[in-house]
């Protein structure tokens, strides 16, 4: 069992059955499909490629795999998925990854180091993330926790979490609630209800808080009562293995 397994299972558990979910590719997709195969069979998966209500039997490699279209309730154009579906706040949960994240859950997926025109590392960029972050009912972020990703200040704000703290989202007029959970390979962080600062509220089994502190580029706040993630159950692990096998099988 790897830290990534913990992360994926914890993310899957964070999804309630029946919710409408905007799914990005990679770990969010794995977690969403795991949830659908375990406790949340009625979750509605929505992809930026225009697929609404996809029920993939294999784990897609991209957000536009054919499997997502042929199993969808409806396939709409890309302008429509953003304008008619994401923009009005119809989608309850958005699932995002990050290359860098700060204490207010602002996310960078654009550039690292140097300046914008001549960065040290050019990342893929925004994709659907800025609007997912601002317009979904709430957001769950999945990101590995280490000194490169958890930064005092992100090099570029691609997607807004809580901006510069309390009141920022309201001032910007962002309708969604923002990131309610950041799920990592070490545990789970949640925004403090008053300061909006990400606070470690849960550690995966076998992780101690010092590890989390070292993996965080700012002075990490820790909840008074720190929970421990229940380890993935046999059922969850089996479902996860099955799911990953479907991707391998589809690739073969």
């Amino acid at each position, binding site marked *: 069992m790897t830290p990534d397994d913990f992360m994926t299972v914890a993310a899957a558990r964070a999804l309630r059955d029946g919710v409408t979910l905007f799914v990005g590719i990679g770990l969010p997709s794995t977690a969403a499909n795991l949830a659908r195969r375990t406790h949340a069979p009625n979750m509605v998966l929505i992809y930026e490629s225009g697929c609404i209500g996809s029920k993939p039997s294999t784990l897609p490699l991209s957000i536009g795999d*054919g499997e997502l279209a042929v199993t969808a309730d409806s396939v709409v154009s890309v302008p429509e998925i953003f304008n008619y579906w994401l*923009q009005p706040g119809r989608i309850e949960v958005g699932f995002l990854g990050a290359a860098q994240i700060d204490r207010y859950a602002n996310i960078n997926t654009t550039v690292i180091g140097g300046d914008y025109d001549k960065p040290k590392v050019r990342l893929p960029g*925004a*994709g659907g993330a800025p609007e997912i972050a601002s317009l979904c009912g709430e957001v769950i972020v999945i990101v590995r926790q280490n000194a490169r990703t958890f930064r005092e200040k992100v090099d570029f704000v*691609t997607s807004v979490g809580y901006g510069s703290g309390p009141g920022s989202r309201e001032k910007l007029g962002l309708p969604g609630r923002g990131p309610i959970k950041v799920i990592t390979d070490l545990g789970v962080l949640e925004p403090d209800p008053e300061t909006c600062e990400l606070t470690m509220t849960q550690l995966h089994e076998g992780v101690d808080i010092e590890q989390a502190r070292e993996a965080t580029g700012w002075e990490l706040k820790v909840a008074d009562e720190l929970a421990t993630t229940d380890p993935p159950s046999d059922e969850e692990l089996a479902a996860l293995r099955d799911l990953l096998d479907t991707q391998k099988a589809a690739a073969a």
Partner: protein
Amino acid sequence: MAELLSLQEAVASVVHDGDSVAFEGFTHLIPFAAAHEVMRQRRRDLTVIRLTPDVIFDQLIGAGCVRKLVFSWGGNPGVGSLHRFRDAVENDWPAPLELEEHSHAGMANRFAAGASNLPFAVLRGYTGTDLPERTPSIKPIECPFTGEKLTAVSALNPDVGVIHAQRADREGNVQLWGIVGVQKETVLASTRSLVTVEEIVDELEPLPGAIVLPHWTVTCVAVAPRGAHPSYAQGYYDRDNEAYRAWDPIARDREKFQQWLDEEIYGEAGRSPAGYARQDAESSNQNAGLEAPRR
């Protein structure tokens, strides 16, 4: 009426040095064959436009066709970085690359505005991010009824729109289905358009989820079987995920990339009808059938 041309004639006719060219297809129906022909004809100074640059733009950028990139997400989906894109941005190799960077929502709206002959579109987007500071085609706008602040993006009206579709009839009416992305908008927003298709048929039988672009909206149609490979054409062949993974080591290394270019694009292989597709033809599922959406 759309002209039916060979891919070589079609590219020579509609794509010129210095043009702005949108190549669309959201994961599905990416017009690889047309891009390869553009590379083969050594077009230069292009402004290339696409929501998801993908491997197709990694190749165009690496081949030195591109001066400027207009985009919203530049990765190899499910695999990682686009190394030729990164090499151009980070190291100016083979040439400096100007960027105009948006989000998907913004790019989709820019195409829709272009298709509608409006100079801009309005959305709830970009607010609080660092993008508007870097991108002059994003500006604030106020609702004349409520005073609410929203975001405007300027329209996209490329010189050329290039897409791949499943099929066309002999008049040049084009039919595509599955994930349709912003392909209709791309053709309608562009001054000229080139549609590559899997095949020409006598009649376009209606299919669930299919859209039709009438022949009088299309400049030319060229047959390019497997012309979307390694992406896919629903009903014809599946996405070649392995080819996307195989691209990573080629693109990581300038020399390997150059070799790929010489062999697969400029060389003998590139002159075979399916070009780059050839080597992987056997691994794909030729029996995908004309699948209708199922629920």
